[in-house]
């Protein structure tokens, strides 16, 4: 119970830290957003006095000039935690409205990518370990390493170039067709999958190898364990040894990798969504960067961090269900 509170506390602390960080970056860094805004207004209105410019900047950035920096911080924090991320200067809509609408699409791509990456990685890694030293092992180890060294977005650009623009097999952007109405229908689901296919494929192909090699290494380690030898001599059936002994013990360490993957893949989604013009969180983050729309940019950053913290928290809490050694909680080391 203490452990649970500890974990929850850390998660909340992380989000508070992130929001504080974004406050610091927006308000305090010289040459930051406020200076940029000031410069922009000055360019558009050459005759304006600097007091008038400051007033305009404060109005646009929703800053109350009568407040001290601490008061500003408190009011920023409280509005963020009430779900108010400000108004997008580019779109003119509330930031949270834009991002809440985009979030499910990002999660959709992420979930599919993670699912396939780990399914392929675990399956392939197990077979490679089982056939250690064989031609199969050698070939797929090399293939895994090769794909692992291609940046996911480079593969994405290649797919876009070959499969979308040159061969016209896949859409060059968007997340669903206008012709298909949004709703819980098979047609819509297929259409969404069709649009998500290339981003997902870019992720899966460049990342499955890493998981496969990790699974291979873990399995080989387990194959050398005493308990495995004991299980064989006790005459346990092969299926039980494969799943309860090798499989389970080799997959467990991957769980930590999974947690880390959630973070890196979310980060990667930002770039892939921009490349595939797939309107998720990352796409809006880039729109915001191009338009110097700081509320939208920081909002996207906060939403992404919150989603990752929540995902890691979930993974952390459920880990105890599959690894009995983690039930104590405190002693487990995250690698």
């Amino acid at each position, binding site marked *: 119970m203490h452990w649970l509170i500890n974990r929850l506390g850390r998660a909340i602390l992380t989000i508070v830290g992130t929001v504080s960080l974004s406050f610091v970056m927006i308000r305090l860094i010289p040459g930051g957003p406020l200076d940029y805004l000031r410069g922009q207004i000055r360019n558009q209105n050459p005759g304006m006095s600097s007091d008038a410019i400051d007033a305009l900047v404060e109005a646009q950035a929703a800053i109350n000039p009568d407040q001290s920096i601490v008061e500003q911080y408190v009011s920023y924090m409280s509005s963020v935690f009430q779900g108010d991320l400000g108004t997008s200067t580019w779109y003119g809509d509330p930031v949270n409205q834009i991002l809440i609408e985009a979030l499910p699409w990002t999660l959709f791509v992420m979930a599919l990518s993670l699912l396939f990456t780990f399914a392929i990685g675990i399956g392939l890694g197990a077979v490679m370990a089982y056939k250690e030293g064989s031609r199969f092992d050698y070939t797929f180890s090399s293939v895994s390493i090769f794909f692992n060294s291609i940046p996911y977005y480079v593969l994405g650009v290649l797919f876009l170039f070959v499969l979308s623009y040159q061969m016209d097999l896949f859409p060059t952007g968007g997340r669903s067709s206008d012709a298909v109405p949004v709703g819980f229908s098979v047609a819509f689901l297929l259409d969404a999958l069709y649009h998500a296919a290339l981003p997902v494929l870019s992720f899966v192909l460049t990342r499955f190898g890493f998981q496969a090699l990790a699974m291979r290494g873990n399995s080989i380690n387990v194959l050398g*364990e*005493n*308990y495995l*030898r*004991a*299980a*064989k*001599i*006790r*005459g*346990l*059936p092969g299926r*039980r040894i494969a799943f*309860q*002994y090798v499989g*389970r*013990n080799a997959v*467990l360490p991957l769980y930590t990798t999974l947690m880390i993957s959630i973070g890196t893949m979310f980060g990667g989604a930002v770039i892939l969504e921009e490349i595939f013009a797939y309107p998720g969180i990352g796409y809006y983050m880039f729109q915001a960067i191009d338009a110097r729309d700081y509320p939208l940019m920081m909002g996207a950053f906060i939403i992404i961090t919150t989603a990752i913290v929540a995902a890691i928290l979930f993974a952390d809490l459920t880990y105890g269900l*599959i*690894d*009995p*050694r983690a039930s104590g909680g405190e002693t487990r080391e995250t690698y």
Partner: protein
Amino acid sequence: MSPGKDVVLDVEGARVQFEMDRGVARVLDDVDLSVSREEIFGIVGESGSGKSMLAASMLDAVEDPGVLSGSITYYPSPDEPVDILELSAEELRQLRWEEIAMVFQGALDSFNPTLRIGQHFQETLSAHNVDRQSGMERARELLSDLYLEPEQVLASHPHELSGGMRQRALIALALLLEPEVLVMDEPTGALDLLMQRSILSLIKKLQRKYNLTIVFISHDLPLVANLADRIGVMYAFDLVEVGTAEDVVEGARHPYTRALLKAVPNLETPYAEMQPIAGRAPDPVSVPKGCSYAERCPLADDQCLDVHPPYDDLTDEHRVACYYPEEAPAAIPLPFEDQSVERPDDPPEAAGAAPGKEGSR
């Protein structure tokens, strides 16, 4: 070999080889050995001498790429020989654990960390088609015999038990299917001295209660001397001396056995009298053609270097692979020579006391 006795396990010409980059390594070199019913047979040797291979051979459980040849015969009753190396995969699967069970070296990680102790017992019962209810009753009885709280232990995960508890649970698991023979490979290696003693006395108790035959393998000669009825000393992949515990400890005739007795670290042995054995054990790829110990032996002559010495049967029970069993005591004197040694029948409190004890005075 003692033909008159009721032999339960007969090993003849057991050899384990495997291919290495440098050539063929022979890690078990034509070992002959008979284990009698309901005795405790101790095998002693330093690490690398092949004793774990010998243990694994008794269940035909030598791991790849090792290849076992020779013959291993198991006698469920005196006139019913079973050639273990000729069994089909399924017959072998049944023989293991039902007839001959094993406790491994590195016993502390012999349990699957993700399963409860009880699940290990249950899966073993169902793998051998034993009624779960009566099987688990036996499990509980065994655990109580080993001074464990059955319900608590069965519900625990391995990491929740101490080393000694895990070790005892493992012994209970080995005896679950009522085997005739229990092979224990360094079962106390990872335990502290106090725990070693209590496990040894438990092993003795179980042996009497369940009429077990036990093959007990260790690098620790004093430990084995206190437990075993008979002892075999291994050096460089073969047994060099076999005899009753008394023969081997008090009347050791092989120069290696004597050197081993002298090298035994004991708190009460004066430092000056404790001597490591100079030189190295032979490489398994190129075992010398003569006596494998000749290079380190003070008695070695040309014959020793050229021709592998056959066993010299000193008595019915005591045999030594050496040309000079009569000269050995004078050449390698032991500090405790002519002293009496505690016997295995002594009360368990004395278990673990080393034979060198009296010698130090």
